């Protein structure tokens, strides 16, 4: 036999009758739900009223300007970015503490993780919110920052933190979310650190690296490659979980959507639209993380 002939092509994957039947059943269900809503429910669909809350026509300037839902989306995005950054810092620190030799640090980080994992998120958020905003923020003076000071009253601040008038509201939301998600990231980081071969610790210690350098130069780069997929999943969970801070009146997408739904009474349109916004947001992040993962895999030979 000639060894240079190419290998036989693998069999093609085709949809079978059973698959098609399954698809038709799903389609039938969707049609039926649509039929119930239009014919039985007698619901008066009005998309333009809700879309008005995405962008509205401003009579004074004669231009379209963003409205509540778009503001909410922007706040959700900011919330997600800041909470992700903070949660990563918390998670890496606590995750390292979970694995280190110091007993006090191990107890502290373990306590943090167990506390958060064993409380319903809503309960934790209420307790912490009323503690942070009523005690700590007042003590720190966050509530009475100068809204017209040069540090606050500029476009960069608005881009990073949104409306200065709502700054302490935003900060509370970001903090509470970061603390909450940080516990889950802690566990992911711990698993990542522990998955690095013991020999890597020994070899880096044996050439005299300090504990910080061992972690930064040798352990974390290897851990990160392993934990990138669960980490990406957790970041996307964070975006979705951010909806829960609407309960403490953080002016993000879900909170404003509740308001829009009640003022317009267009419940279906509002929540379908908001659902699509969350989907686009989360799916874009998922695609971005997928790209990052492939890049990391390429550089690691």
């Amino acid at each position, binding site marked *: 036999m000639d060894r240079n002939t190419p290998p036989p092509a693998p069999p093609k994957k085709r949809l079978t009758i059973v698959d098609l039947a399954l698809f038709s059943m799903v389609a039938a269900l969707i049609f039926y739900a649509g039929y119930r809503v239009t014919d039985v429910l007698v619901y008066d669909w009005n998309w333009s009223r809700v879309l008005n809350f995405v962008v509205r026509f401003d009579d004074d300037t004669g231009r379209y300007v963003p409205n509540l839902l778009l503001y909410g989306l922007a706040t959700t995005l900011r919330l997600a970015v800041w909470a992700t950054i903070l949660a990563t810092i918390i998670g890496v620190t606590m995750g390292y503490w979970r694995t280190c030799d110091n007993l006090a640090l191990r107890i502290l980080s373990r306590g943090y993780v167990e506390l958060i994992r064993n409380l319903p998120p809503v309960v934790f958020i209420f307790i912490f919110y009323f503690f942070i905003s009523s005690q700590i923020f007042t003590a720190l003076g966050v509530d009475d920052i100068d809204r017209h000071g040069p540090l606050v009253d500029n476009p960069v601040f608005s881009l990073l933190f949104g409306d200065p008038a709502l700054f302490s509201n935003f900060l509370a939301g970001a903090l509470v979310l970061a603390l909450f998600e940080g516990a889950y990231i802690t566990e992911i980081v711990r698993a990542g650190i522990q998955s690095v071969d013991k020999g890597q610790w*020994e070899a880096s210690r044996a050439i*005299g*690296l300090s504990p910080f350098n061992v972690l930064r130069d040798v352990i974390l780069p290897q851990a990160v490659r392993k934990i990138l997929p669960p980490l990406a999943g957790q970041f996307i969970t964070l975006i979705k979980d951010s909806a829960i801070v609407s309960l403490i009146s953080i002016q993000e997408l879900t909170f404003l959507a509740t308001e829009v739904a009640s003022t317009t009474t267009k419940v279906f349109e509002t929540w379908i639209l908001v659902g699509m916004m969350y989907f686009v947001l989360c799916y874009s992040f998922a695609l971005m993380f997928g790209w990052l993962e492939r890049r990391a895999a390429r550089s690691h030979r």
Partner: protein
Amino acid sequence: MLDQNPQPFVEIRGLCKWYGDFSALHDINLNVALGEKVVVCGPSGSGKSSLIRCINQLEAHQKGTIIVDGIEVTPDMKNKEKIRREVGMVFQSFNLFPHMTILANLTLGPMRNRGASKSEARELAMHYLNRVHIAEQADKYPAQLSGGQQQRVAIARSLCMKPKIMLFDEPTSALDPEMIAGVLDVMIELAEEGMTMVVVTHEMGFARRVADRVVFMDEGEIIEVAEPEPFFNTPQSERAKLFLSQLLGH
């Protein structure tokens, strides 16, 4: 002859080590003079690795004293870092950093600890890569090298810290037979240049050629210390006789 050196480079007195309740090392006394080559052998689980890992404090000991180059070894972090810069170590499983090129594996230590600039560290690394006959692989990643090449890189990585003593923990045990000679050659060259070495190995040819003394361990104790020829030809203890017969038996 070297035993009479008044100032041993490594001095181990009354060393005891436990893992939990398990006594892994019991009352170890051993001196290593500057320039001396000591081969440590003994059955698996006899405490050879534990002994040399106590010297650079990869494992903490609970009793006794270890003095390296006049510094007493303690669990204090600063002290450990200081000791580890004088003591190089080569592992059975190489333990190269897989996410870095060969060159980066070698330059990391000098850049972080000795304040070497990038170009200085690079020059140093290339010097040692040349000495282990592997300079042309500098830009590859560890996984692209054979086991023998990886172990030679690991030796070069340790040498980049300019250690005064090198510890080897069964450096050839994880290698395919055809790779062993290349690594042993590098170690013999290093010995001939006068490096102080403590080598855990069962390579009798290497021990005969290089060792000043052979230390035989069993069950956490030093049973016998002798020059290689008398040790291999006429071992004194029953346990050493049994061990050597098993070693040659297969």
